[in-house]
Protein backbone atom coordinates (compact mmCIF):
# COMPACT_ATOMS: atom_id res chain seq x y z
CA UNK A 1 0.00 0.00 0.00
CA UNK A 2 1.10 3.54 -0.74
CA UNK A 3 0.87 4.93 2.72
CA UNK A 4 2.98 2.17 4.24
CA UNK A 5 6.26 4.04 4.18
CA UNK A 6 4.76 7.14 5.70
CA UNK A 7 3.03 5.18 8.47
CA UNK A 8 6.21 3.28 9.21
CA UNK A 9 8.09 6.54 9.63
CA UNK A 10 5.33 7.85 11.88
CA UNK A 11 5.46 4.65 13.98
CA UNK A 12 9.16 5.11 14.56
CA UNK A 13 8.56 8.81 15.15
CA UNK A 14 6.04 8.12 17.91
CA UNK A 15 8.38 5.67 19.59
CA UNK A 16 11.45 7.86 19.11
CA UNK A 17 11.21 10.01 22.26
CA UNK A 18 10.77 6.95 24.48
CA UNK A 19 13.50 5.02 22.68
CA UNK A 20 15.82 7.96 23.09
CA UNK A 21 14.91 8.39 26.77
CA UNK A 22 15.37 4.71 27.62
CA UNK A 23 18.44 4.51 25.40
CA UNK A 24 20.12 7.31 27.30
CA UNK A 25 18.69 6.95 30.80
CA UNK A 26 18.82 3.17 31.03
CA UNK A 27 21.45 1.84 28.65
CA UNK A 28 23.64 4.92 28.36
CA UNK A 29 23.67 5.50 32.10
CA UNK A 30 24.39 1.84 32.82
CA UNK A 31 27.35 2.14 30.45
CA UNK A 32 28.47 5.25 32.27
CA UNK A 33 28.11 3.54 35.67
CA UNK A 34 30.22 0.62 34.42
CA UNK A 35 32.83 3.15 33.33
CA UNK A 36 32.72 4.89 36.74
CA UNK A 37 33.09 1.52 38.48
CA UNK A 38 36.43 1.10 36.71
CA UNK A 39 37.85 4.37 38.04
CA UNK A 40 39.12 5.81 41.31
CA UNK A 41 36.39 8.44 41.55
CA UNK A 42 36.10 8.52 45.30
CA UNK A 43 35.86 12.07 46.60
CA UNK A 44 33.61 15.08 46.23
CA UNK A 45 36.15 17.41 44.60
CA UNK A 46 36.85 15.09 41.71
CA UNK A 47 33.10 14.45 41.47
CA UNK A 48 32.41 18.14 40.96
CA UNK A 49 35.20 18.40 38.40
CA UNK A 50 34.49 15.04 36.81
CA UNK A 51 38.12 13.95 37.03
CA UNK A 52 39.20 10.36 37.51
CA UNK A 53 41.74 7.73 36.51
CA UNK A 54 41.04 4.20 35.35
CA UNK A 55 42.02 1.52 37.82
CA UNK A 56 40.62 -1.55 36.07
CA UNK A 57 38.75 -4.01 38.26
CA UNK A 58 40.25 -2.72 41.49
CA UNK A 59 36.90 -1.58 42.95
CA UNK A 60 35.39 -5.01 42.34
CA UNK A 61 38.38 -6.83 43.81
CA UNK A 62 38.19 -4.61 46.89
CA UNK A 63 34.47 -5.24 47.27
CA UNK A 64 35.00 -8.97 47.34
CA UNK A 65 37.47 -8.46 50.16
CA UNK A 66 35.19 -6.03 51.96
CA UNK A 67 33.49 -7.68 54.91
CA UNK A 68 30.54 -5.29 54.83
CA UNK A 69 29.83 -6.12 51.19
CA UNK A 70 30.19 -9.88 51.73
CA UNK A 71 27.92 -9.73 54.79
CA UNK A 72 25.41 -7.75 52.73
CA UNK A 73 25.45 -10.33 49.95
CA UNK A 74 24.82 -13.16 52.41
CA UNK A 75 22.05 -11.14 54.08
CA UNK A 76 20.44 -10.44 50.72
CA UNK A 77 20.63 -14.11 49.80
CA UNK A 78 18.95 -15.27 53.00
CA UNK A 79 16.46 -12.45 52.86
CA UNK A 80 15.58 -13.41 49.28
CA UNK A 81 15.25 -17.09 50.13
CA UNK A 82 13.05 -16.79 53.21
CA UNK A 83 11.06 -13.86 51.89
CA UNK A 84 10.16 -15.80 48.74
CA UNK A 85 9.39 -19.00 50.65
CA UNK A 86 7.21 -17.10 53.11
CA UNK A 87 5.35 -15.05 50.53
CA UNK A 88 4.79 -18.12 48.35
CA UNK A 89 3.57 -20.32 51.18
CA UNK A 90 1.16 -17.71 52.55
CA UNK A 91 0.13 -16.38 49.14
CA UNK A 92 -0.62 -19.78 47.64
CA UNK A 93 -2.52 -20.89 50.72
CA UNK A 94 -4.59 -17.70 50.70
CA UNK A 95 -5.30 -18.04 46.98
CA UNK A 96 -6.44 -21.67 47.24
CA UNK A 97 -8.73 -20.94 50.18
CA UNK A 98 -10.18 -17.78 48.68
CA UNK A 99 -10.71 -19.47 45.33
CA UNK A 100 -13.09 -21.87 47.11
CA UNK A 101 -15.20 -18.87 48.04
CA UNK A 102 -15.48 -19.14 51.82
CA UNK A 103 -17.92 -16.75 53.43
CA UNK A 104 -16.45 -13.25 53.37
CA UNK A 105 -13.80 -14.25 50.82
CA UNK A 106 -13.96 -10.83 49.17
CA UNK A 107 -13.15 -9.10 52.47
CA UNK A 108 -10.32 -11.52 53.25
CA UNK A 109 -8.85 -11.01 49.80
CA UNK A 110 -8.87 -7.24 50.16
CA UNK A 111 -7.29 -7.37 53.60
CA UNK A 112 -4.50 -9.66 52.38
CA UNK A 113 -3.74 -7.49 49.39
CA UNK A 114 -3.90 -3.97 50.83
CA UNK A 115 -0.24 -3.85 51.97
CA UNK A 116 0.71 -3.78 48.26
CA UNK A 117 -0.77 -0.27 48.11
CA UNK A 118 1.34 0.99 51.02
CA UNK A 119 4.80 2.50 50.73
CA UNK A 120 7.80 0.54 52.01
CA UNK A 121 8.53 3.67 54.04
CA UNK A 122 5.25 3.26 55.94
CA UNK A 123 5.78 -0.50 56.32
CA UNK A 124 9.27 0.10 57.64
CA UNK A 125 8.07 2.74 60.11
CA UNK A 126 5.38 0.50 61.61
CA UNK A 127 7.38 -2.71 61.78
CA UNK A 128 10.28 -0.82 63.34
CA UNK A 129 7.90 0.15 66.14
CA UNK A 130 6.72 -3.43 66.51
CA UNK A 131 10.19 -4.95 66.61
CA UNK A 132 12.02 -2.17 68.47
CA UNK A 133 13.59 -4.14 71.32
CA UNK A 134 14.04 -1.40 73.91
CA UNK A 135 16.27 -2.43 76.79
CA UNK A 136 15.89 -5.41 79.17
CA UNK A 137 14.72 -3.07 81.94
CA UNK A 138 12.36 -1.08 79.79
CA UNK A 139 11.37 -3.29 76.89
CA UNK A 140 9.47 -2.01 73.89
CA UNK A 141 7.41 -3.47 71.09
CA UNK A 142 6.93 -7.22 71.13
CA UNK A 143 9.42 -7.54 73.97
CA UNK A 144 7.12 -5.48 76.18
CA UNK A 145 4.27 -7.78 75.23
CA UNK A 146 6.36 -10.80 76.25
CA UNK A 147 7.24 -9.12 79.54
CA UNK A 148 3.62 -8.28 80.25
CA UNK A 149 2.51 -11.82 79.40
CA UNK A 150 5.01 -13.07 81.97
CA UNK A 151 7.35 -14.65 79.42
CA UNK A 152 10.43 -12.36 79.67
CA UNK A 153 12.66 -15.26 78.56
CA UNK A 154 11.23 -14.83 75.04
CA UNK A 155 12.65 -11.32 74.78
CA UNK A 156 15.49 -10.89 72.31
CA UNK A 157 17.24 -8.09 70.46
CA UNK A 158 15.25 -8.45 67.22
CA UNK A 159 16.79 -6.40 64.43
CA UNK A 160 19.66 -5.33 66.67
CA UNK A 161 20.62 -8.90 67.48
CA UNK A 162 24.12 -9.84 66.37
CA UNK A 163 23.47 -13.54 66.81
CA UNK A 164 23.92 -15.61 63.69
CA UNK A 165 23.50 -19.20 62.59
CA UNK A 166 26.42 -19.71 60.25
CA UNK A 167 26.26 -16.78 57.82
CA UNK A 168 22.55 -16.22 58.58
CA UNK A 169 22.03 -13.18 60.82
CA UNK A 170 18.82 -13.82 62.70
CA UNK A 171 18.13 -10.06 62.87
CA UNK A 172 16.97 -10.48 59.27
CA UNK A 173 13.87 -12.30 60.49
CA UNK A 174 12.29 -8.92 61.25
CA UNK A 175 12.77 -7.65 57.70
CA UNK A 176 11.63 -10.95 56.24
CA UNK A 177 8.38 -10.75 58.24
CA UNK A 178 7.76 -7.18 57.08
CA UNK A 179 8.43 -8.08 53.44
CA UNK A 180 6.24 -11.19 53.62
CA UNK A 181 3.51 -9.02 55.12
CA UNK A 182 3.77 -6.67 52.17
CA UNK A 183 4.11 -9.18 49.32
CA UNK A 184 2.08 -12.29 50.18
CA UNK A 185 -0.90 -10.63 48.57
CA UNK A 186 1.10 -10.36 45.38
CA UNK A 187 1.56 -14.13 45.11
CA UNK A 188 -2.07 -14.54 46.08
CA UNK A 189 -3.24 -12.21 43.29
CA UNK A 190 -1.08 -14.00 40.71
CA UNK A 191 -2.24 -17.43 41.83
CA UNK A 192 -5.88 -16.40 41.93
CA UNK A 193 -5.65 -15.05 38.38
CA UNK A 194 -4.17 -18.39 37.29
CA UNK A 195 -6.67 -20.51 39.23
CA UNK A 196 -9.55 -18.77 37.48
CA UNK A 197 -8.16 -20.03 34.18
CA UNK A 198 -8.24 -23.69 35.24
CA UNK A 199 -11.35 -25.37 33.79
CA UNK A 200 -13.94 -26.29 36.40
CA UNK A 201 -14.58 -29.68 34.73
CA UNK A 202 -11.01 -30.77 35.36
CA UNK A 203 -11.35 -30.30 39.10
CA UNK A 204 -14.85 -31.80 39.02
CA UNK A 205 -13.59 -34.91 37.19
CA UNK A 206 -10.81 -35.39 39.75
CA UNK A 207 -13.29 -34.97 42.57
CA UNK A 208 -15.62 -37.59 41.08
CA UNK A 209 -12.64 -39.95 40.86
CA UNK A 210 -12.31 -39.50 44.62
CA UNK A 211 -9.32 -37.16 44.74
CA UNK A 212 -8.92 -35.35 48.05
CA UNK A 213 -8.51 -31.60 48.33
CA UNK A 214 -4.81 -32.09 48.99
CA UNK A 215 -4.40 -34.39 45.97
CA UNK A 216 -6.16 -31.89 43.75
CA UNK A 217 -3.74 -29.26 44.99
CA UNK A 218 -0.54 -31.27 44.58
CA UNK A 219 -1.44 -33.18 41.41
CA UNK A 220 -3.48 -30.63 39.45
CA UNK A 221 -3.35 -27.06 40.74
CA UNK A 222 0.32 -26.83 41.61
CA UNK A 223 1.63 -28.40 38.34
CA UNK A 224 -0.72 -26.24 36.28
CA UNK A 225 0.42 -23.12 38.11
CA UNK A 226 4.10 -23.86 37.72
CA UNK A 227 4.70 -21.05 35.21
CA UNK A 228 2.91 -18.50 37.39
CA UNK A 229 4.74 -19.65 40.49
CA UNK A 230 8.04 -19.33 38.66
CA UNK A 231 7.13 -15.80 37.53
CA UNK A 232 6.27 -14.89 41.11
CA UNK A 233 9.59 -16.29 42.34
CA UNK A 234 11.61 -14.39 39.73
CA UNK A 235 9.77 -11.12 40.28
CA UNK A 236 10.09 -11.36 44.07
CA UNK A 237 13.77 -12.33 43.81
CA UNK A 238 14.41 -9.19 41.81
CA UNK A 239 12.38 -7.11 44.27
CA UNK A 240 14.42 -8.47 47.17
CA UNK A 241 17.64 -7.34 45.47
CA UNK A 242 16.16 -3.87 45.10
CA UNK A 243 14.53 -3.67 48.56
CA UNK A 244 16.47 -0.60 49.54
CA UNK A 245 13.58 1.41 51.00
CA UNK A 246 12.36 -1.20 53.46
CA UNK A 247 15.75 -1.98 54.94
CA UNK A 248 16.96 1.62 54.93
CA UNK A 249 13.86 2.89 56.73
CA UNK A 250 13.24 -0.03 59.06
CA UNK A 251 16.67 -0.98 60.37
CA UNK A 252 19.46 0.54 58.32
CA UNK A 253 22.59 -1.56 58.13
CA UNK A 254 22.38 -2.47 61.83
CA UNK A 255 25.12 -3.33 64.33
CA UNK A 256 27.92 -5.29 62.59
CA UNK A 257 25.87 -4.88 59.38
CA UNK A 258 23.47 -7.61 60.51
CA UNK A 259 20.69 -6.20 58.35
CA UNK A 260 22.79 -4.62 55.63
CA UNK A 261 22.18 -5.34 51.95
CA UNK A 262 24.25 -4.16 48.95
CA UNK A 263 21.54 -1.68 47.90
CA UNK A 264 21.86 0.13 51.27
CA UNK A 265 25.65 -0.04 51.19
CA UNK A 266 25.61 1.43 47.68
CA UNK A 267 23.47 4.36 48.76
CA UNK A 268 25.51 5.12 51.86
CA UNK A 269 28.93 4.77 50.30
CA UNK A 270 27.92 6.83 47.25
CA UNK A 271 25.86 9.62 48.73
CA UNK A 272 27.17 9.73 52.30
CA UNK A 273 30.78 8.72 51.70
CA UNK A 274 31.27 10.12 48.17
CA UNK A 275 32.80 6.82 47.05
CA UNK A 276 31.22 7.02 43.62
CA UNK A 277 33.33 4.30 42.07
CA UNK A 278 32.76 1.82 44.84
CA UNK A 279 29.04 2.57 44.77
CA UNK A 280 29.02 2.11 41.00
CA UNK A 281 30.75 -1.24 41.42
CA UNK A 282 28.12 -2.41 43.92
CA UNK A 283 25.29 -1.30 41.67
CA UNK A 284 26.75 -3.09 38.64
CA UNK A 285 27.02 -6.30 40.67
CA UNK A 286 23.36 -5.81 41.67
CA UNK A 287 22.45 -5.20 38.03
CA UNK A 288 24.18 -8.39 36.95
CA UNK A 289 22.32 -10.41 39.59
CA UNK A 290 19.01 -8.90 38.49
CA UNK A 291 19.95 -9.51 34.84
CA UNK A 292 20.63 -13.19 35.46
CA UNK A 293 17.08 -13.49 36.81
CA UNK A 294 15.21 -11.14 34.53
CA UNK A 295 16.71 -11.53 31.04
CA UNK A 296 15.77 -15.23 30.64
CA UNK A 297 12.36 -14.35 32.09
CA UNK A 298 11.84 -11.52 29.57
CA UNK A 299 12.94 -13.71 26.66
CA UNK A 300 10.68 -16.50 27.79
CA UNK A 301 7.65 -14.34 28.53
CA UNK A 302 7.73 -11.81 25.73
CA UNK A 303 10.19 -13.21 23.21
CA UNK A 304 8.17 -15.94 21.56
CA UNK A 305 5.24 -13.86 20.36
Amino acid at each position, binding site marked *: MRYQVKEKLLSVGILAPSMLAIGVFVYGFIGRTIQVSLTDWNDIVSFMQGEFDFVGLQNYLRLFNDSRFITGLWNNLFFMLFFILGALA*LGIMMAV*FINDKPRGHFIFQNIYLFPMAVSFVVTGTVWRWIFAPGSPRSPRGINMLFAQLGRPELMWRWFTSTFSIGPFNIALVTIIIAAVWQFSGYTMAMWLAGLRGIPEQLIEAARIDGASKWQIFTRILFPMQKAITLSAIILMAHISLKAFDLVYVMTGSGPNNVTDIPAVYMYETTFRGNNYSRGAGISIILLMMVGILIIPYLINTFGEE
Partner: protein
Amino acid sequence: MQDYGKFKYLVYIILFLLTIFFLLPMYVLFATSFKSFAEVSRQAMWLLPSEYTLAAFAEAYTRLIPHLRNSLVLVIPSTLISAMLGSLNGYVLSEWKFRGSDTIFALLLFGMFIPYQSILVPLVRFLQTIGLYGSLQGLIFVHIVYGIPITTLIFRNYYSDVPSSLTEAAKVDGAGIFRVYSKIFFPISIPAFVVVIIWQFTNIWNEFLFAVTITQTPAQQPITVALNNLAGSQVVQWNVQMSGAILTALPTLLVYIIFGRYFIRGILAGSVKG
Protein backbone atom coordinates in the same frame (compact mmCIF):
# COMPACT_ATOMS: atom_id res chain seq x y z
CA MET B 1 -16.23 -24.73 50.52
CA GLN B 2 -18.36 -27.83 51.27
CA ASP B 3 -15.70 -30.37 50.25
CA TYR B 4 -13.34 -29.33 53.03
CA GLY B 5 -15.52 -31.48 55.29
CA LYS B 6 -14.42 -31.35 58.87
CA PHE B 7 -11.47 -29.10 57.95
CA LYS B 8 -13.84 -26.30 57.08
CA TYR B 9 -13.47 -24.65 60.47
CA LEU B 10 -9.71 -24.98 60.30
CA VAL B 11 -9.77 -22.99 57.04
CA TYR B 12 -11.74 -20.23 58.71
CA ILE B 13 -9.39 -20.20 61.68
CA ILE B 14 -6.39 -19.85 59.33
CA LEU B 15 -8.08 -17.07 57.35
CA PHE B 16 -8.86 -15.32 60.59
CA LEU B 17 -5.31 -15.61 61.95
CA LEU B 18 -3.96 -14.24 58.67
CA THR B 19 -6.37 -11.34 59.00
CA ILE B 20 -4.90 -10.56 62.41
CA PHE B 21 -1.37 -10.69 60.95
CA PHE B 22 -2.28 -8.35 58.09
CA LEU B 23 -4.20 -5.91 60.27
CA LEU B 24 -1.72 -5.85 63.16
CA PRO B 25 0.30 -2.93 61.70
CA MET B 26 -2.97 -1.08 61.10
CA TYR B 27 -3.93 -1.56 64.73
CA VAL B 28 -0.53 -0.27 65.83
CA LEU B 29 -0.86 2.74 63.55
CA PHE B 30 -4.27 3.75 64.83
CA ALA B 31 -3.76 2.87 68.49
CA THR B 32 -0.52 4.85 68.63
CA SER B 33 -1.54 7.90 66.65
CA PHE B 34 -4.51 8.74 68.85
CA LYS B 35 -2.39 8.70 71.99
CA SER B 36 -0.73 11.61 73.74
CA PHE B 37 3.05 11.64 73.89
CA ALA B 38 2.95 10.80 77.60
CA GLU B 39 0.93 7.70 76.91
CA VAL B 40 2.94 6.21 74.02
CA SER B 41 6.00 5.72 76.10
CA ARG B 42 4.19 4.03 78.94
CA GLN B 43 3.44 0.37 79.61
CA ALA B 44 0.23 0.52 77.65
CA MET B 45 1.86 0.78 74.23
CA TRP B 46 -0.08 -2.20 72.87
CA LEU B 47 -3.40 -1.05 74.28
CA LEU B 48 -5.90 1.32 72.76
CA PRO B 49 -5.53 4.91 73.99
CA SER B 50 -7.06 5.55 77.41
CA GLU B 51 -7.80 9.01 76.13
CA TYR B 52 -8.13 9.77 72.44
CA THR B 53 -6.38 12.89 71.25
CA LEU B 54 -5.75 14.41 67.84
CA ALA B 55 -2.62 16.21 69.03
CA ALA B 56 -0.26 13.84 67.22
CA PHE B 57 -2.25 14.16 64.02
CA ALA B 58 -2.22 17.92 64.33
CA GLU B 59 1.54 17.97 64.69
CA ALA B 60 2.14 15.42 61.91
CA TYR B 61 -0.21 17.37 59.69
CA THR B 62 1.57 20.68 60.28
CA ARG B 63 4.94 19.12 59.63
CA LEU B 64 3.90 17.07 56.63
CA ILE B 65 1.42 19.23 54.77
CA PRO B 66 4.05 20.93 52.56
CA HIS B 67 5.36 17.47 51.64
CA LEU B 68 1.91 16.10 50.91
CA ARG B 69 1.58 19.04 48.55
CA ASN B 70 4.98 18.24 47.01
CA SER B 71 3.91 14.65 46.45
CA LEU B 72 0.75 15.79 44.69
CA VAL B 73 2.70 18.22 42.51
CA LEU B 74 5.04 15.35 41.71
CA VAL B 75 2.51 12.61 41.13
CA ILE B 76 -0.05 14.34 38.92
CA PRO B 77 2.09 15.43 35.96
CA SER B 78 4.40 12.41 36.02
CA THR B 79 1.45 10.02 36.11
CA LEU B 80 -0.46 11.73 33.30
CA ILE B 81 2.51 12.23 30.99
CA SER B 82 3.86 8.71 31.43
CA ALA B 83 0.36 7.32 30.84
CA MET B 84 0.03 9.28 27.62
CA LEU B 85 3.45 8.17 26.38
CA GLY B 86 2.66 4.57 27.33
CA SER B 87 -0.61 4.68 25.44
CA LEU B 88 1.02 5.90 22.22
CA ASN B 89 3.95 3.49 22.52
CA GLY B 90 1.69 0.57 23.33
CA TYR B 91 -0.54 1.42 20.39
CA VAL B 92 2.33 1.49 17.90
CA LEU B 93 3.99 -1.63 19.34
CA SER B 94 0.74 -3.56 19.18
CA GLU B 95 -0.94 -2.31 16.00
CA TRP B 96 1.82 -0.94 13.75
CA LYS B 97 4.54 -3.50 14.18
CA PHE B 98 7.57 -3.14 11.98
CA ARG B 99 10.77 -5.13 11.73
CA GLY B 100 12.57 -4.72 15.02
CA SER B 101 9.58 -3.36 16.94
CA ASP B 102 9.40 -6.44 19.18
CA THR B 103 13.08 -6.00 19.99
CA ILE B 104 12.45 -2.36 20.83
CA PHE B 105 9.65 -3.45 23.13
CA ALA B 106 11.89 -5.95 24.93
CA LEU B 107 14.64 -3.34 25.29
CA LEU B 108 12.15 -0.84 26.73
CA LEU B 109 10.79 -3.44 29.16
CA PHE B 110 14.19 -4.21 30.63
CA GLY B 111 14.18 -0.65 31.94
CA MET B 112 11.55 -1.46 34.54
CA PHE B 113 13.58 -4.25 36.10
CA ILE B 114 16.97 -2.62 36.53
CA PRO B 115 18.06 -1.73 40.04
CA TYR B 116 17.92 2.05 39.83
CA GLN B 117 21.16 2.21 41.81
CA SER B 118 22.89 1.31 38.56
CA ILE B 119 21.91 4.61 36.91
CA LEU B 120 21.84 6.85 39.95
CA VAL B 121 25.27 8.49 39.79
CA PRO B 122 25.09 9.46 36.08
CA LEU B 123 21.50 10.57 36.68
CA VAL B 124 22.50 12.91 39.52
CA ARG B 125 25.26 14.38 37.37
CA PHE B 126 22.93 14.80 34.42
CA LEU B 127 20.35 16.60 36.54
CA GLN B 128 23.06 18.84 37.97
CA THR B 129 24.19 19.72 34.46
CA ILE B 130 20.74 20.71 33.28
CA GLY B 131 20.00 22.47 36.57
CA LEU B 132 17.17 20.22 37.75
CA TYR B 133 19.02 18.46 40.55
CA GLY B 134 17.39 18.92 43.93
CA SER B 135 14.10 20.04 42.49
CA LEU B 136 10.66 18.50 42.14
CA GLN B 137 10.80 19.15 38.39
CA GLY B 138 13.87 16.93 38.20
CA LEU B 139 12.02 14.20 40.07
CA ILE B 140 8.97 14.55 37.80
CA PHE B 141 11.22 14.15 34.79
CA VAL B 142 12.84 11.04 36.28
CA HIS B 143 9.50 9.40 37.04
CA ILE B 144 8.26 10.06 33.52
CA VAL B 145 11.33 8.46 31.97
CA TYR B 146 11.43 5.39 34.19
CA GLY B 147 7.65 5.03 34.00
CA ILE B 148 7.75 4.47 30.23
CA PRO B 149 8.40 0.68 30.37
CA ILE B 150 5.50 -0.27 32.65
CA THR B 151 2.97 2.08 31.05
CA THR B 152 3.97 0.88 27.56
CA LEU B 153 3.62 -2.74 28.70
CA ILE B 154 0.14 -2.29 30.16
CA PHE B 155 -1.19 -0.44 27.11
CA ARG B 156 0.42 -2.80 24.63
CA ASN B 157 -1.13 -5.82 26.35
CA TYR B 158 -4.47 -4.07 26.48
CA TYR B 159 -4.43 -3.14 22.79
CA SER B 160 -3.30 -6.65 21.81
CA ASP B 161 -6.71 -7.89 22.88
CA VAL B 162 -8.48 -5.60 20.40
CA PRO B 163 -9.43 -7.70 17.35
CA SER B 164 -6.91 -6.96 14.60
CA SER B 165 -9.70 -6.97 12.00
CA LEU B 166 -10.78 -3.62 13.40
CA THR B 167 -7.43 -1.99 12.68
CA GLU B 168 -7.08 -3.77 9.36
CA ALA B 169 -10.45 -2.54 8.18
CA ALA B 170 -9.57 1.03 9.15
CA LYS B 171 -6.22 0.72 7.38
CA VAL B 172 -7.91 -0.54 4.20
CA ASP B 173 -10.20 2.48 4.34
CA GLY B 174 -7.04 4.57 4.25
CA ALA B 175 -7.10 5.77 7.86
CA GLY B 176 -3.65 6.81 9.05
CA ILE B 177 -1.88 6.01 12.27
CA PHE B 178 -3.18 9.02 14.20
CA ARG B 179 -6.71 8.68 12.87
CA VAL B 180 -6.95 5.01 13.91
CA TYR B 181 -5.64 6.00 17.34
CA SER B 182 -7.97 8.92 17.91
CA LYS B 183 -11.08 7.27 16.43
CA ILE B 184 -10.69 3.68 17.57
CA PHE B 185 -8.04 3.13 20.19
CA PHE B 186 -8.06 6.21 22.38
CA PRO B 187 -11.84 6.06 22.99
CA ILE B 188 -11.68 2.42 24.16
CA SER B 189 -8.61 3.03 26.32
CA ILE B 190 -10.34 4.29 29.46
CA PRO B 191 -9.99 1.04 31.44
CA ALA B 192 -6.29 0.83 30.55
CA PHE B 193 -5.80 4.48 31.48
CA VAL B 194 -7.45 3.82 34.83
CA VAL B 195 -5.13 0.87 35.49
CA VAL B 196 -2.04 2.80 34.44
CA ILE B 197 -2.93 5.98 36.30
CA ILE B 198 -3.67 4.07 39.51
CA TRP B 199 -0.48 2.07 39.17
CA GLN B 200 1.72 5.08 38.49
CA PHE B 201 0.01 7.18 41.14
CA THR B 202 0.58 4.50 43.78
CA ASN B 203 4.16 3.76 42.78
CA ILE B 204 5.32 7.33 42.44
CA TRP B 205 3.59 8.38 45.66
CA ASN B 206 5.25 5.50 47.52
CA GLU B 207 8.67 5.79 45.89
CA PHE B 208 11.68 6.53 48.07
CA LEU B 209 15.07 5.95 46.40
CA PHE B 210 14.80 8.59 43.66
CA ALA B 211 13.06 10.96 46.05
CA VAL B 212 15.76 10.78 48.71
CA THR B 213 18.66 11.10 46.26
CA ILE B 214 17.28 13.75 43.95
CA THR B 215 15.52 16.18 46.27
CA GLN B 216 17.97 17.84 48.58
CA THR B 217 16.30 20.66 50.48
CA PRO B 218 13.41 19.93 52.86
CA ALA B 219 11.23 22.33 50.88
CA GLN B 220 11.31 20.02 47.85
CA GLN B 221 10.98 16.66 49.58
CA PRO B 222 7.98 14.47 48.89
CA ILE B 223 6.04 12.78 51.66
CA THR B 224 7.99 9.50 51.87
CA VAL B 225 11.27 11.30 52.51
CA ALA B 226 9.64 13.64 55.03
CA LEU B 227 8.10 10.71 56.88
CA ASN B 228 11.47 9.03 57.15
CA ASN B 229 12.96 12.29 58.42
CA LEU B 230 10.37 12.42 61.22
CA ALA B 231 12.19 9.43 62.68
CA GLY B 232 15.45 11.36 62.65
CA SER B 233 14.57 13.74 65.46
CA GLN B 234 16.25 13.21 68.85
CA VAL B 235 13.25 12.07 70.86
CA VAL B 236 11.26 9.47 68.97
CA GLN B 237 7.71 10.75 69.01
CA TRP B 238 6.07 7.50 68.03
CA ASN B 239 2.59 8.95 68.06
CA VAL B 240 3.58 11.68 65.61
CA GLN B 241 5.42 9.19 63.41
CA MET B 242 2.44 6.86 63.29
CA SER B 243 0.08 9.72 62.49
CA GLY B 244 2.52 10.72 59.77
CA ALA B 245 2.56 7.17 58.44
CA ILE B 246 -1.25 7.21 58.27
CA LEU B 247 -1.22 10.53 56.40
CA THR B 248 1.36 9.11 53.99
CA ALA B 249 -0.54 5.90 53.36
CA LEU B 250 -4.02 7.42 53.18
CA PRO B 251 -4.10 8.60 49.54
CA THR B 252 -2.91 5.29 48.09
CA LEU B 253 -5.11 3.31 50.47
CA LEU B 254 -8.13 5.33 49.36
CA VAL B 255 -7.25 4.62 45.74
CA TYR B 256 -6.94 0.93 46.61
CA ILE B 257 -10.28 0.87 48.39
CA ILE B 258 -12.10 2.67 45.58
CA PHE B 259 -10.35 1.13 42.57
CA GLY B 260 -9.16 -2.22 43.98
CA ARG B 261 -10.07 -4.17 40.85
CA TYR B 262 -7.94 -1.95 38.62
CA PHE B 263 -5.13 -1.96 41.13
CA ILE B 264 -4.95 -5.76 40.90
CA ARG B 265 -4.74 -5.54 37.13
CA GLY B 266 -1.76 -3.22 37.50
CA ILE B 267 -0.08 -5.73 39.82
CA LEU B 268 -0.65 -8.52 37.35
CA ALA B 269 0.47 -6.48 34.34
CA GLY B 270 4.14 -6.92 35.04
CA SER B 271 3.88 -10.62 35.58
CA VAL B 272 1.30 -12.31 33.38
CA LYS B 273 1.65 -12.60 29.67
CA GLY B 274 -0.77 -10.30 27.86
